[in-house]
């Protein structure tokens, strides 16, 4: 398979894409597996790679000769994965709504939610954009400037959201640790 691949796609553009994929595919797989159902991850990754292949000339920090710096290319590639994920989720939501109308089913938990209910309850209490910024910081290890590149927000807006999200999540988790049972996530509102 390997030799066939090399023979079939031997061109400078192909080589450049291969080098890029070698750097970004695993981080993108992790990014998606944190946010999408296991059975959807492969499809969304394939779609993301297809967009990257077609937009290869637009990837910032990618030149023919210099080695690829993951920090240069990754935020942009996360941005592409983010768009593909959003698109897949919209399609999924439409299907769920139809199913829901028929069965009145409860939506399934997201990846990892069952194992850390208190943390996910705290994350669930955050506005969506704040949660996204917080998780890009914690799970992808991105700096505010890079998060801005992924989300299209300004660095300033990212810093503000990140600060707010950290403070609120920490306060909610501390409250849980103090022995309050249950999942009343609304309690954290006084903290803003």
């Amino acid at each position, binding site marked *: 398979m390997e030799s066939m691949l090399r023979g079939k796609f031997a061109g400078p553009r192909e080589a450049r894409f291969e080098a890029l994929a070698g750097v970004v595919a695993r981080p993108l797989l992790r990014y998606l597996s944190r946010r999408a159902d296991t059975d959807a991850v492969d499809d969304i990754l394939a779609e993301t790679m297809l967009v990257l292949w077609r937009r290869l000339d637009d990837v910032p920090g990618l030149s023919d000769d210099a080695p690829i710096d993951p920090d240069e290319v990754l935020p942009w590639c996360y941005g592409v994965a983010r*768009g593909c994920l959003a698109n897949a989720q919209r399609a999924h939501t439409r299907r769920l709504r139809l199913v829901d109308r028929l069965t009145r089913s409860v939506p399934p938990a997201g990846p990892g939610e069952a194992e850390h209910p208190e943390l996910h309850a705290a994350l669930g209490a955050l506005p969506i954009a704040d949660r996204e910024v917080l998780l890009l910081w914690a799970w992808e290890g991105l700096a505010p400037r890079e998060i801005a590149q992924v989300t299209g927000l300004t660095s300033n807006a990212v810093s503000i959201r990140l600060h707010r999200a950290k403070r609120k999540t920490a306060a909610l988790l501390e409250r849980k640790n103090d022995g309050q049972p249950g999942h009343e996530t609304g309690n954290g509102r006084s903290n803003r």
Partner: protein
Amino acid sequence: MNDDELLARLRIADPARNHAAAPLDLDHLLEETMTADTASRTTISAPGRQRHRPLLMAAAAAVIVAGIGLPWAITQTGDGNRPPVAAVPLALTVQQQTGAGGVQTACAEVDVNTLRQYSTAFQGTVTSVNGDQVNLRVDHWYRGGNAATVQLSDNHDGQPEFAGQTYETGHSYLIYAKDGQIPSCLFDAEATPQLRSLYDQAYTG
């Protein structure tokens, strides 16, 4: 709880850390990507054939403005004379996705060949956004229309975002459509000089 403690707490709950790293067959992924693209490009250049895009929903596209559907198709030839402007707004909806192949192709970066497959293309400025509906004033028709205004509606979703693009009043966008539907994944439709030159290449000359 300081930043480091919070970070540690969040990382413990990282789904990608807790579940054994999902296997990744990079060579397979590369081959799949480049083959899928080669296949779709070949299909584009073959006249008379459609890509896997579920565009044959034409029959369902009752959306096309009653009465002015035909004139659009004809006015395109008039180069020097501007076509007469229709008072009735052109109504477009967002194409609904069906099937995995559709998702893949619809999300790919737009290029000249893709644009040429679409029978409707224009630059418009958003005049108002009302829930599921975006109204645009047409600044320039590239292909297939003479309406002065266009009404985009997304009756599948109910989100203030259409086809991956958020629309803001006063901003200009480049939009392409076919059979009364814009692709379900129209990223980066904001009218930048780059996108405009792509439209110029696709629809002129």
